[in-house]
């Protein structure tokens, strides 16, 4: 379980997170929605220690995320980045098997390559992609490789940062379905941030709406359309009228 307790974060005069409180139960898929620049990515990066909160606590299975063995902590996570964040200098299979080629999870090179190819197959890519470089792949293929890398070491917790941004609707659907299948299959805890409502409906067990630096609403995805929350209703409908300013 991941717990945010009154998490604050500012960048200069901009107070991005103003006391985020949120619980993501073990084995559930939580999607955090909200407009651009509302701090969704910041919240996610705070869990991984990529950004340090100014105050508040983030706990993973009850333990403060900032304490303890960092390598062991990070080994529990997989993450799909918005732009893929694949390493340009490495072929696809070495990107996927990055964690298996070094550090505490290191395996023999042949075994790591086999696992990488199996994970590539799992996300719908053929083995001949393994020796290509990321720059030779389309946007959709890069997302799939990023997804394969995120699941390569069988993590307990997977983060997805805007998984469908920049993809066409069909490819978005494919990635959404893959994420859902993989999360269910692995029994992983998932935290996704997006503003794509199709993704939300495809991926989420629960939804949290982040606006003005706090969680405005949280609940099961099935209750999202009937929540009555003015922020969530406006966000879902995409209306310019409502409590969320259209020009921010």
């Amino acid at each position, binding site marked *: 379980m991941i717990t945010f307790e009154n998490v604050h974060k500012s960048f200069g005069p901009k107070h991005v997170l103003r006391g985020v409180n949120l619980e993501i139960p073990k084995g559930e898929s939580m999607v955090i929605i909200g407009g651009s620049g509302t701090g969704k990515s910041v919240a996610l990066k705070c869990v991984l*220690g990529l950004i340090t909160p100014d105050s508040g606590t983030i706990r993973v299975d009850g333990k403060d995320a900032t304490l303890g063995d*960092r390598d062991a902590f*990070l*080994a529990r996570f*997989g993450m799909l*980045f918005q732009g893929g*964040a694949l390493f*340009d200098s490495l072929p696809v299979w070495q990107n996927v098997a990055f964690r298996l080629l*070094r550090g505490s999870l290191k395996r023999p090179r042949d075994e790591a390559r086999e696992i990488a190819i199996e994970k590539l197959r799992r996300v719908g890519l053929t083995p001949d992609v393994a020796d290509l470089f990321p720059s030779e792949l389309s946007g959709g293929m890069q997302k799939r490789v990023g997804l394969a*890398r995120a699941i390569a070491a069988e993590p307990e917790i997977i983060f997805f940062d805007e998984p469908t941004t920049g993809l066409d609707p069909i490819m978005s659907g494919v990635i959404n379905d893959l994420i859902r299948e993989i999360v269910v299959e692995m029994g992983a805890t998932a935290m996704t941030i997006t503003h794509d409502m199709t993704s939300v409906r495809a991926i989420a067990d629960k939804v949290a709406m982040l606006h003005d630096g706090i969680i405005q609403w949280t609940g099961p995805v099935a209750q999202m359309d009937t929540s009555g929350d003015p922020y969530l209703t406006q966000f879902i409908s995409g209306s310019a009228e409502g409590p969320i300013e259209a020009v921010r």
Partner: protein
Amino acid sequence: MILTAPLAALGRATLALLSSIGQVALFAFSALSHILRPPFYGREFASALLNVGWLSLPVVGLTAIFTGAALALQIYDGGSRFSAEAVVPQIVAIGMVRELGPVLVGLMVAARVTSSIAAEIATMKVTEQIDALVTLSTHPMKYLTAPRVLAALLVVPLLVGVGDIIGVYGGFLVATGNLGFNPATYITNTWNFLEISDIVSSLIKGSVFGFIAATMGCYYGMNSGRGAQGVGRATKSSVQAAAVLILAANFALTSLFFAS
């Protein structure tokens, strides 16, 4: 208020400069400490050796040969004003080995390697590849900085050695081809005049300049701003800082080795 504004601006600029110096110094110490502590990334180190050393050879060789040749012409012409043309071999040797070899190789490495390191790491930062490294339990200082800094520390002295030899050879070609020097005498004069301390100082300078060049590339890359403009600014600043620091370090090292 109007009178104190320039002082306040000066104060802010001074604080910013001191803060930058402190940050660069801490980064350099951190890079050195990561070189000494495992894990070590052999493939990245080998790749850095190839990039910093082998692939820099053509530009280093060309720079050195033309500089050595021009130096021989200048010394011959200048020396002729007080009938000292015969010192061309000795002055080319000492000029190349003590000063021009290390400084020009250092500046060429700054232009070629510092810029490429800064642009590569800055692009990795902008495209979240550095964040991805962290989430994959890999320390960016160990994976990106330590191999590059160690490679430059070890291989730039070798480049300087090669540059020294090629520079002296450039002087030899001009002196024996155009200025009428006897080849055997030229080589003997060069060899007899140089001292071990000249060569050692040259190599030490190379090592220091290599460290500066790689560290500046990594520092500005890691601290790059956002977008294409951030990458461009990081690249430009890294080369500027490396070039200035190399020249300043050259003066400091020359004072240390030869002032007495």
